[in-house]
């Protein structure tokens, strides 16, 4: 009986000390690996507060966050599933603090910082020169395996230069051809090698590759990298209205998408 009272008092004191905003900071979503955004920042910050997470608080739920969460679940007697559900979040909020203003401010300023418990926050910031303020919430991005953001940008440049007038699927198709060439023994095996192979793409030859690509081109590249190949394994394509080489016409054709014919 006495124990129950202690618990009750502790709870009452706890709710008094903590502004109510803290506990309900998490949105009701179940957070899982691959997620991005504010909830992930809070999750990482709280896990770091307790010493489970030693990585960067970047707002992207990667493998490090995953193992940190599982370790937390294990230590706190929760089912170890790597999902931040209602029960896990409740226990996490109870056990840790989250200085949201501090974290958001550091992210906005682009500083290197940590959020460990027991150390004054002012000692956990390393200011970065320049101090450019950023609009993005997260300081990292999910990338498909084997590709960096710059690889994606380079491919988006090529796709935009080659096929910006094509329907969306035609842009995915051009990106897919670049990827198919990477795998093919007749072609170079790097993204840059394929794109800059002399004579391979007209957009490279006439400099249109250096136009700034739009979001559509980037999305098309991402779709192609993630496994969508509308061409059925094509390694060549050409515009029948402008193609001058008779050899390209002799290639076995797979299908036509927009103004391009895709072939083996």
């Amino acid at each position, binding site marked *: 009986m006495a124990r129950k009272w202690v618990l009750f008092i502790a709870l009452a004191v706890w709710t008094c000390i903590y502004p109510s905003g803290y506990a309900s900071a998490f949105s009701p979503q*179940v957070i*899982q690996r691959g997620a991005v955004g504010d909830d992930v920042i809070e999750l990482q910050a709280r896990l770091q507060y307790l010493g489970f997470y030693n990585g960067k608080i970047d707002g992207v739920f990667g493998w490090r966050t995953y193992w940190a969460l599982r370790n937390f679940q294990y230590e706190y007697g929760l089912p170890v599933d790597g999902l931040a559900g209602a029960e896990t979040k409740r226990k996490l909020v109870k056990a840790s603090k989250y200085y949201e203003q501090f974290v958001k401010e550091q992210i906005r300023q682009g500083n290197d910082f940590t959020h460990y418990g027991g150390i004054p926050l002012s000692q956990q910031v390393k200011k970065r020169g320049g101090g450019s303020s950023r609009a993005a919430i997260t300081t990292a991005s999910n990338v498909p395996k084997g590709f960096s953001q710059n690889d994606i940008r380079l491919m988006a440049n090529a796709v935009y230069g080659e096929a910006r007038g094509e329907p969306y*699927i035609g842009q995915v198709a051009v990106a897919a051809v670049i990827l198919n060439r990477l795998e093919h023994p007749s*072609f170079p095996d790097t993204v840059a090698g394929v794109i800059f*192979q002399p*004579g391979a793409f007209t957009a490279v030859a006439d400099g249109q590759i250096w136009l700034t690509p739009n979001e559509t081109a980037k999305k098309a590249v991402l779709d192609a990298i993630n496994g969508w190949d509308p061409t059925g394994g094509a390694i060549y394509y050409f515009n029948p209205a402008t193609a001058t*080489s008779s050899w390209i016409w002799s290639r*076995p054709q797979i299908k036509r998408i927009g103004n391009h014919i895709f072939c083996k």
Partner: protein
Amino acid sequence: MVRNILIAALVVAVIGTGYWGYREHQKKNAILIHAENNYQRAFHDLAYQIDLLHDKLGATLAMNSHASLSPALAEVWKIASEAHSDVGQLPLSLLPFNKTQEFLSKIGEFSYRTAVRDLEKEPLTKEEYKTLEALYKNAGAIRQELRNVQHLVLENNLRWMDVELALATNDQKGDNIIIDGFKAVEKNVDTFSTSSEFGPSFIGLANEEKGFVRAKGRPISKDEAKRVAREFLGLKGTEKIKVTESGNGADERFYSLTIHDSKTKGDIYMDVTKNGGYPIWALNSRPVGKPKISLHEALNRGMAFLRRHQFTGFELYDSTQYDNVAVLTFVKSENGIRIYPEAIQMKVALDNGHVVGFTARDYLSSSIPRPLPKPTLTVEEVRKKVNPHLKVMEQRQAVIMHDLQKPVLCYEFLGTLGGETYQLFINAATGLEEKVEKLESVEPNYG
């Protein structure tokens, strides 16, 4: 007076323009020479590498000790890969030169595989020696041709820029010595690679074209393909659907559908196999608004979609949020064994939870025989072979494709080492480490 000033001004202008034109001309020339030099370097480098390749291959034939054979084969691999990269820098993409490139990449693959093998335990077979001999002979022929072209290039001051021009304008009458020379090389390789001298160990390296093994059933008509799309995508029936059949370059016949609904923005695209009418992939190009559901909720929707379309026994392998869409990868799982080659990818829009992308290409073309083999080693035996520094967090059985594109049953371990996560596959029959990969899906933003 006025006339004189006018004349003087004109003279100045003419001289000025002339000077400017001369400077421009010089600049252009400098750039052309620079480009030409890049081509020349790649070409002469290629000739040298092939020369070296021929010599090294010859040396491997004479070697007897395994201790010297492995490094020699590793060197062959390196040279072949450099030659392959040189070819990629020459303006040959409009010239049929792929046989030679394929040849180089196959030499590389063959020498790599034999170099990394423990030749003490598993010496080169008779067939592999025959392959080596054939490679040597073929490399010798290519070398001869290339040296010849090289001689002509140097002798006659031939320029690669002219090759590029001739190829681009498809100049039929102008016979270009370089083009002819490379055509001769290509022809040479062609006759070699079709001859039986290479033996099965070499032919086996060629990537087999895999069709849609799983797509069984009678051929369907275009109207039936439309019906498949309506059912699969949950269409209302008022949309305009355009169907075209694949050309003769496709490995297997399929229909391509473009679905246009005037009420929604963005068309839906879909391919359906002709045999049996299986959806290969679908992609909705509509713009996706701000996220309203979580990645986890998207996963639930994706799972429900799979169940609704009779894809049973799939589990989530990977989930990633890219801006407003979730990309999910599911793999087939049988009795707790993940079959990685049988994967399905899906895109779920986070604004309304609808599936906006689907691809089952891998799943449809997988031909892994069932029942799956039983592991001969226990997980405890295999676990001893894991690097002791790796902290194993998860383990399970899995089927993957190994280097030679054959399915193998493995024990899969997920573990951490120094803050990084690694995925290990260890053969459940032999205990060999088949594949070790560092898993990294997050990249910091720059700038």
